[in-house]
């Protein structure tokens, strides 16, 4: 979804369609509402991550063997001491899900940040300098994009081995091509505009033109894309967990919890259901926010 999703989003942004519809105002209101819901969900997750030690009744690795596999509080045999029940090691699932938000957000946020940084830098360099620099960078970008995303991620994850840094690195690198495209495309477009040409003519260098004329114009689409990338990365972290390729097993990530709980789906469903819901809520929230962002701060939407 990441590469593809973002690419599709680029196409939509590029064509900037659907902005002059008679019912546009209504739609914007609707989107505002869902955007707010998205923001709310995301803030909820962020709050959980920031205040984890205050919210979670237990540490993520705390528990006793005799409390293993307790069902959620509202089921028979459940106890209010463990709201969502416990896993095989007697660890409190609610607490682990709260702490898990840290891992997921870290992977999503740092992964997206890294992807933006790498992508935009390379894209600006390629677009601005052109020639061979451009050809090499574009070539490499196309190369990464031509390997189907999931296959690329699986192969790199297999090679790198399990660690939080590796997972972030992996998503940062594999997520960067779309940003290269956006940044480069924007530079190419703006370079043709008269005022930029004029600025260049007046002797302005890249150091002046990029922050002045180019960055402000791409912040909108970049933010939108980064949001979608972030949700995709959280989503894919769980997928890697499924294959045993994500962060190390002692890190309480939602992907790891889901991968473990999967074996108990028929007998102790709570061990898989709640981490799954956590992933769904987070990606849903970010996607809603992304939708909203795309529709409201797309600069070309304002231009027209």
């Amino acid at each position: 979804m990441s590469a593809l999703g973002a690419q599709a989003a680029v196409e939509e942004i590029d064509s900037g369609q659907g902005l002059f519809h008679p019912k546009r105002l209504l739609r914007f209101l609707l989107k505002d509402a869902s955007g707010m819901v998205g923001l709310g969900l995301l803030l909820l997750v962020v709050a959980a991550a920031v205040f984890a030690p205050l919210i979670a009744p237990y540490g993520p690795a705390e528990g006793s063997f005799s409390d293993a596999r307790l069902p959620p509080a509202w089921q028979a045999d459940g106890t209010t001491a463990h709201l969502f029940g416990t896993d095989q090691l007697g660890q409190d699932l609610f607490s682990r899900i709260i702490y898990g938000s840290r891992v997921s957000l870290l992977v999503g946020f740092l992964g997206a940040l890294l992807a933006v940084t790498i992508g935009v830098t390379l894209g600006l360099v390629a677009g601005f300098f052109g020639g061979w620099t451009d050809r090499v960078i574009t070539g490499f970008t196309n190369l990464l994009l031509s390997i189907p995303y999931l296959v690329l991620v699986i192969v790199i994850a297999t090679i790198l081995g399990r660690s939080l840094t590796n997972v972030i690195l992996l998503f940062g690198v594999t997520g960067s091509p779309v940003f290269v495209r956006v940044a480069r495309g924007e530079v190419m477009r703006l370079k043709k505009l008269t005022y930029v040409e004029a600025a260049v003519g007046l002797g302005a260098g890249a150091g002046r033109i990029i922050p002045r004329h180019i960055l402000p114009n791409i912040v909108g689409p970049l933010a939108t894309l980064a949001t979608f990338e972030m949700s995709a990365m959280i989503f894919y972290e769980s997928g890697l967990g499924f294959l045993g390729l994500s962060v190390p097993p002692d890190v309480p990530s939602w992907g790891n919890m889901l991968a473990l709980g999967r074996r108990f789906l028929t007998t102790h469903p709570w061990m898989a259901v709640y981490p799954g819901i956590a992933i769904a809520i987070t990606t849903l929230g970010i996607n809603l926010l992304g939708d909203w962002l795309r529709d409201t701060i797309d600069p070309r939407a304002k231009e027209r």
Partner: protein
Amino acid sequence: MSRYVKLLSALLVSAALASTLFATTAVAQESTEPSGELVVSLSSDPTSLFMPRTADRTASNTAWSLYDSLVWIDEDFEIVPALATSWEISEDGTEYTFQLREGVTFHNGEPFTAESVVATWETGMDPSNDYANVFEEAESVEIIDDHTVRITTPEPNATFLTRLATFWGMVPPEYIAEVGIDEFAQNPVGTGPFRFVSRTAGDRVVMEANPDYWDEGLPKVERLVYRVIPDASTRLAAIQTGEIDIANRLTFDQVSVLEGNDNVEVVTYLNDRAYYVGFKNIGNGEGSPIEDRNVRLALNYGLDRYGIIQAIFSGQAEPLPGFVVQGNLAYDEEMMQPFPYDPERAQELLAQAGYPDGFQIALSCPADGYVNINEVCLAIQRSLADIGVEINVDFRTTNSFWSEPRYGVTGPMYVDSWSSEIGEALPRLQGALVPGNYYNTWEDERIAELIQEIEQEVDRKARAQLYQEMHRLMTEDPPFIYLYQPMIFEATRANVEGYDPRPAEEYFLKTVSLEEE
């Protein structure tokens, strides 16, 4: 929607009725003729159907339906005749002379003769084979006459016949010479109870009963289909729906769902596998606290293996007493008691060793290398924290975990396991404790000498004595923290008869039959 459910169930009922009627008439004919189609799940695609290349249990179980060896190991681990009707072992224990069964033919019509034994040995030693080393245990294979061969080993070898029975699937000399090993593995030919029909990679292997099988009355099913189903939850689903007849490698929690299901029977047995924490007194283990015997004893007393088994395996595993496990030669329940959980004693021992406040040490873990292993590693960490030993769990990919000889990149402690398919502890003793071996990290001269004695002791009773001595040695000065012996959970449809898997997860399907449902 409910209307559709009704309609569908009506259809299903009528289909079921029809099939019952049909089945009744089909089975009524002849009870000795093989009948029915047996569908067995495999947890991974077999690596090869050529015995020396069957890298794992799944592959060898599948391939064994096609072959026979000279001898066979029965349920009591006795060596009994198969393609050899009798054999003699020379005084010095290095020459085996086999009388071969006459009138046996391969699935392609080639007769089984002494030539076949030579061809099996020679192709088995091909360096591209996974198990080339097993065939290299024989120094020579001589043809005495058409139906007599003599196999020589360089030294007396207590387990040679067992290896012969486990790996030497007889191959037809002319065919394999003509097509080569690679092609042979694609279209395998043996003398076994079933003959190869087809294989679809990643999906299924199909076999049919060998009508000329030398063992009268076997096999009992006409068609045998192995289906590859990597995901355990899916195997569970498929045995519930009846799409397969035998489901293996399930978990306790999964089979507990099958309770009360009259169509399915649960098969449970102890696996001949020992899980343990290894210590290194070589490499990065040198100079670490675990070199001290009292520390290793303390860790054995201070680990709550009972609690771990309760939590992670719902109590469905046995605490491990040593390397001789339940079901092994020389196992004695009285003598072989696991270490009790005694944290106070553990702390005393640590104090005696000069670590009253414990110490810090790294424990490497092959992430996802075994069922539940990640959780076991974390549980060890938590349990030993109670006696002041702080464990840093180092999760490694299986590739890096086993990549260096003698666990070069792990440790000084690591979690691993060792199985045995011969009903004796010898393979795991050799593998883990013979100095210099690939998986050896603990050098103890007394143990090494005793292993050598066991290897060369051809007499079972005398060998049993030696194993018990070994057990004493390995608990007085333990080279491992003994963890647990796991249980295996499988399920069959209720009409499957004669399915009798062995402790090493081996099974032979020639005796399995399908009763009327």
